């Protein structure tokens, strides 16, 4: 019985987190920290740090990473599913309802002009997200070269509709970095042998 209660509690708690975090990602981390570390004591501060690092180095929404981690830690797979479904469900319902009427909504004149302004704001938000990430990145020559090259390629791709997918660039960048690492490792080893 107690087992079941925790699963339900995980679901409800993460549903609440999913319902009240606007803007996703980092806003969610502070709420998860508040609830899971301070109030429920499901995980420790150190674990919360671990989750943040893992979330940043793995793909997928940070909220999902956190929910899966906490849920799995508490009650294994069942807990992980309960927490993950919980965190998604509120926004799934809301977005589904919106998607039903947004198109006809946009045909109204003043709403269409409102969205003209909003489009520019969205661009600014995306830039801001990029600036924040770049501020946290170590600015070594390698990182800066990759950043600039990719930026220039993607600008050309976006503005002139050239077909290169961003996934191709990501795979290339990851491979380059891996090769550079292996080569410099080998050179170090040979240096030690001499």
């Amino acid at each position, binding site marked *: 019985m107690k087992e079941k209660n925790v699963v339900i509690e995980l679901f409800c708690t993460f549903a609440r987190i*999913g*319902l009240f*975090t*606007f803007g*996703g*990602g*980092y806003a969610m981390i502070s709420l998860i920290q508040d609830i899971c570390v301070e109030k429920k004591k499901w995980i420790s501060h150190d674990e919360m740090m671990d989750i943040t*690092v893992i979330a*940043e*180095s*793995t*793909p*997928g*929404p940070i*909220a*999902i990473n956190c929910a899966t*981690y906490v849920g799995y*830690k508490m009650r294994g797979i069942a807990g*992980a599913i309960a927490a*993950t479904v919980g965190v*998604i469900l509120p*926004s*799934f319902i809301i*977005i589904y309802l*919106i*998607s039903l009427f947004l198109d006809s909504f946009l045909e109204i004149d*003043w709403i269409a002009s*409102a969205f*003209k*302004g*909003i*489009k*520019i*704001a969205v*661009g*600014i*938000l*995306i*830039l*801001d*997200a*990029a600036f924040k*990430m*770049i501020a946290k*990145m170590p600015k070594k020559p390698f990182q800066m070269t*990759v950043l600039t090259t*990719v930026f*220039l*390629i*993607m600008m050309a791709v976006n*503005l002139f509709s050239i077909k290169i997918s*961003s996934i191709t*660039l*990501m795979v*290339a*960048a*990851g491979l380059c*970095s891996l090769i*550079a*690492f292996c080569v410099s490792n080998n050179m170090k080893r040979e240096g030690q042998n001499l």
Partner: protein
Amino acid sequence: MIYIDLFLGFLKVGLFSFGGAYAAIPLIRDVVLHYGWINDEQLAYMIAVSESTPGPIMVNMATYVGSMTAGIPGALIATFSVVLPAFVIIILIMIMMKGLLKNPYAQAVLRGLKPCIMGIILAMGFSMIMQNTVIKEKLVSPDIKSVVVCLVLVAVYFGSRKIVKFGISPIVLICIAAAIGIVVY
């Protein structure tokens, strides 16, 4: 088959979106434009809607695209597949490879991935603003109104950080932009 396309498309998004929501936006753009599900214009609305509603942006966008293209089943499939890679990877990390991310080779790959993602996001933001202000159908034709709106929004968004601790939230910026849009256009 639309369901399989949705599943594979959003699985790719979920698998390559290192670095959170904004890293996923260019990937989603790739996928939806490739299949012709929605255009750039609708994508911008979608981002605004996803920002202004609760929940992870990536999941919101998957639900939205899925629902627009194939109703409830589409929404379910797209949402499921965008979440699946993150879910599986976290569980794998917890079960057997807590040390995996500290592995020097994994670290080396991530060192290359991260600046690449930032470059992609940066280019996405810049080209989005340019397409709405100074470029029309691949030609340079500045729209004075939009340029002014853009400058005002930048001033408000970044200027507010000097006054309030964290500045205004993205939702407030979207509301201000909507109000300005109604007045100007």
